[in-house]
């Protein structure tokens, strides 16, 4: 009996290993495929200003790293995102909790939620510049708005979708309304809050780039827009790839936090 179990465990283990290996093989093959197609296309088109080759893009990247422009622009965009995202989350979570908790707050906020949800933050870029100037404030305000909206709505959904029996169970175990809020409502809403933060992260990137394209002297959006003026298409490519990498890394960071610190809340990211 024991022997049989061990055999089946070993078999399962091996199958799992194969899955992991094939996963990485597919991942690598996908990258190789993309670069091959890109190289062939670039060679076939033959106009670097129209479609630079991977090689030209790499050279562009090295140049931008050497002269410090890449670092400067990455830092500019990233610091705007970090500040705006942090402020937006700090306001969005409590606001969402109140919206979920109180019917009156929900009724009060609802018209604005329903109105603004169809307006992309990008639409506010010019307005933000008129109101908050060309400096950092206008960009940060836009990211705060993006983040706050997404986080608050998802937090509210999290609070509203808590099973009533959880609340009832806590109440008849002797918890006060206040204790129910802190010991049941908030922990039960955490998966939904994290979902909101994840969406907000993606939206923050979109917002910051579009704001930088319209009015900024730094940032990845500025780099992309400015390169267009000099027909440095490979720099545009570097900017786009950098954005993708930044997004990927921030998403992984969020996932790491969720999987280690918030493991018990069964957060799915």
């Amino acid at each position, binding site marked *: 009996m024991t022997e049989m179990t061990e055999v089946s465990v070993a078999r399962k283990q091996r199958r799992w290993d194969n899955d992991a290996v094939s996963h990485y093989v597919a991942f690598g093959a996908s990258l190789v495929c993309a670069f091959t197609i890109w190289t062939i296309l670039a060679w076939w088109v033959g106009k670097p200003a129209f479609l630079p080759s991977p090689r030209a893009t790499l050279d562009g990247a090295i140049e931008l790293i050497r002269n410090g422009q890449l670092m400067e622009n990455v830092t500019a965009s990233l610091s705007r995102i970090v500040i705006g995202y942090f402020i937006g989350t700090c306001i969005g979570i409590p606001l969402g909790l109140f919206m979920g908790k109180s019917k009156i707050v929900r009724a009060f906020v609802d018209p604005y939620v329903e109105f603004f949800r169809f307006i992309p933050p990008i639409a506010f870029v010019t307005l933000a510049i008129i109101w908050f100037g060309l400096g950092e404030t206008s960009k940060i305000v836009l990211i705060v708005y993006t983040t706050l909206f997404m986080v608050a709505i998802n937090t509210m959904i999290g609070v509203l979708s808590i*099973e*009533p*029996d*959880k609340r*009832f*169970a*806590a*109440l*008849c*175990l*002797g*918890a*006060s309304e206040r*204790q129910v809020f802190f*010991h*049941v409502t908030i*922990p*039960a809403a*955490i998966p939904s809050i994290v979902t909101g933060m994840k969406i907000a992260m993606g939206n923050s990137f979109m917002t910051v780039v579009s704001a930088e394209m319209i009015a900024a002297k730094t940032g990845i959006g500025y780099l992309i827009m400015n390169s267009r003026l000099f027909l440095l298409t490979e720099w545009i490519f570097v900017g786009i790839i950098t954005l993708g990498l930044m997004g990927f890394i921030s998403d992984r960071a969020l996932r790491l936090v969720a999987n280690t610190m918030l493991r*018990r*809340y*069964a957060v799915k990211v």
Partner: protein
Amino acid sequence: MGNYDIEVKNVGCVFSARHGARGSDEYIALRGINLSISPGEFFCLLGPSGCGKSTILRMIAGFLPPTSGQILLSGKPIKGPGIDRGVVFQGDAAIFNWLTVEENISFGPRMQGISKDKYRRIVAENVRLVGLEGFEQYQPQQLSGGMRQRLQIARVLANDPGILLMDEPFGALDAQTREIMQQELSRIWSSRKKTVVFITHDIDEALILGDRIAIMTAGPAATIKSSLNIDRPRPRELNEELLRLRREVKAAIEEEVTKAMRQMP
């Protein structure tokens, strides 16, 4: 903690569906419910599904006010949930799945500000009582369905309520696990002597557990059809005598089930 008696006096329950397409959509769930449950009694409420058994339990628990009539707890009307009534819910929805087994069980004592070394003893005692030793640090989703029901029972017992309200607690379990859980509950009840209100649609379960069984009519406007005392020692098995009672109860229930089927749209 003293024992309580429960007095359900002419209770009715009407649900209003305001979003009904035409006219007033009122659903009369319960009508003229009268029950008198004495201290320490194991009371089973048996009825066809959809008859409003759970609604009665939820009203006793204080989750739902009766539309008419009154529910008294040792003479005082119920005004919402309280620690004197522990509720074991039908499914897993009531379990705090972000807490470990131990943290779930200590929830009640912690909310009441009981000191750590005191509630640790309470947790250990109740973990032993329901047989969850060794699983203290597990998350609820790592447990089997039967273990999760035992966790719910332990969590409620940690608060030492005078009354246990159980809403089809073993309904979702397989036959073998259910049988084991019934014996366990019988044993726990014998050692703790609490007033129990137990909701079920399983006749055998009611016969094995109850001091008294009340049978409900089919909804809408369900009420108590009849009730019978089962004065037999525990642990019980379905012997000749209980089987005879079973036929009786079954006939009564079947009548209601057919009625309910005929009323279905």
